[in-house]
């Protein structure tokens, strides 16, 4: 009898523990173990922005102007350039065009080429192809 009583007591005890543990895991507050409250650094970082500047006043007309074509030398721009120039020349026969093939990458004479382009041109059409 005594042994049976101990067995029954242990069974009830285990069952009670099971119920308590289950209730804890189902209870929303019990999930507090999985919750964290902390501070973190916002890692996005502020921009090193040049002060925003307005763009230059537009040309009144293309008639009689010198238009520099700045080709970034990618195959897409290379293919597109002659046809764009053809269309422009048809519409504006008085416009003078000159092409500068300047890679978007750096190379020794690049700064001088950009200066020449800016010095010659009244306006510039850039071609950004890939």
């Amino acid at each position: 009898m005594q042994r049976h009583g101990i067995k029954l007591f242990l069974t009830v005890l285990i069952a009670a523990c099971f119920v308590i543990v289950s209730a804890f895991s189902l209870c929303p507050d019990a999930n507090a173990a999985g919750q964290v409250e902390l501070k973190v650094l916002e890692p996005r970082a502020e921009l090193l922005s040049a002060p925003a500047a307005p763009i230059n006043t537009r040309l009144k007309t293309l008639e009689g102007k010198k238009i520099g074509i700045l080709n970034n030398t990618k195959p897409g721009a290379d293919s597109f350039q002659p046809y764009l120039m053809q269309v422009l020349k048809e519409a504006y026969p008085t416009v003078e065009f000159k092409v500068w093939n300047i890679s978007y990458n750096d190379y020794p004479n690049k700064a001088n080429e950009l200066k020449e382009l800016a010095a010659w041109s009244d306006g510039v059409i850039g071609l950004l192809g890939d």
Partner: protein
Amino acid sequence: MVDQSQVEKVGIPTVTASSDQFTGLAKNTVKSLGLPDMAFVDVAHPMGMISLQEIRARADEAFPKIVQMATNWKPSATAVQKITPAYPAERIKFKGTYEALDKMFYDKGWSIGLPIIPPTPEKVAAMLKGTKRKPDEIVWAVPPRMGQLTVELVAAYGVMARCKPEHMPLLLAVVKALSNPDYDWRGNSTTTAPTNPVIIINGPILDELGIGYSTGALGGEMPVNISVGYFINLVGDIIGGSVPPEIDKSTHGSRGDLVAVVIGENEKLNPWKQSYAVEQGFKPTDNVLTAYSAYMGNINVDHTSVKGEELLNTMAAGLAGAASGVSACMTRFDRSYAVENAVRFAFLFLGPEHADTIYNDFRTKKSASEYLVKKTVLPLWMYAPARCKPPKEFGPYDANTPIPRFTGPEQIRIIVTGGPGKQSQIWPTFPSVTKPVSVLIEK
């Protein structure tokens, strides 16, 4: 777009006709350069390499828009850019599960798809103890977004990537190398090519920090290599803003976009004794890292060659064909991409067993590189015709004439790395202005 913005800045009005797949990147670039209102006309991608009728149709469509932008367009208002101090980084309170925190970081663009360790102020402060540099020092404005990377944020990204305080000098040296103009971070982080930042490390720091340089050094279970590689891409994508599809235009991307290639040289098993860093003028006791941007590597698996020449012959086959298409012929290391659009150099990661085989017949790395220059040849027809036009001094040639890839031994650089096995890897450079940048790791 940097070029057009320079023209605009000296007073010349510009309009840029842009492949519509690249206009977003271009606008982002000019905004970071202080000209957010620059004029663009979208042209349907691709602008070229299509039929003449299609190109003409695109030009016809773009033409009136270009004229309008050149003569009548007025931006509604010049965008005002808010400038706030970079230091200290904002502290944010969070309550929730770690999974929710991880999701928040990804949703806000503060992580790149792998889990992060939360950069709590306590963990960041602990990382900062790994350097004497001041936390408010700005060490890099990271292109193309031009986010200001402070020492504090280096520590924060180190935490996120599971680095330790003793890694701080290494992380700061990585930043110093990648921010060098010779590396060309802007070009490499926005190109359509699958570029991989590569970091090669030499010196006592290898064993001090447990940096992988033997078996599986480029694989898993290399916590320092992986954490530093992860750090690089966290910084590049989050502070630099190089995120696909708008800004990072890499057609396929690569796993190097997630965890950059970080590897130590196996100096102990280098039969030539001189490490790569020593060849670059550093002392054997210096801790040095070398950074460059690479196309994805290919491999040499030669189990049978027992002579140096035989082994270099099979390596030459892989080296000649690496980065096919863009790998122009007869390149020179001292000439720019603009002139040649060429892969100008490559690194060989020789396994120690391969290195021994080559060393038996080539007692200097330079002599091995000179041999490879002679052997890395392809018939002309295997090169892209627009990118391989042998000069007059080359003499007569036809489609089947063998044409060399390289012109000098300095273009083929050798390091010894990895563990046992008859394996080596070939890592050719991205063909921009990028050059290897070697810097001291200063404690």
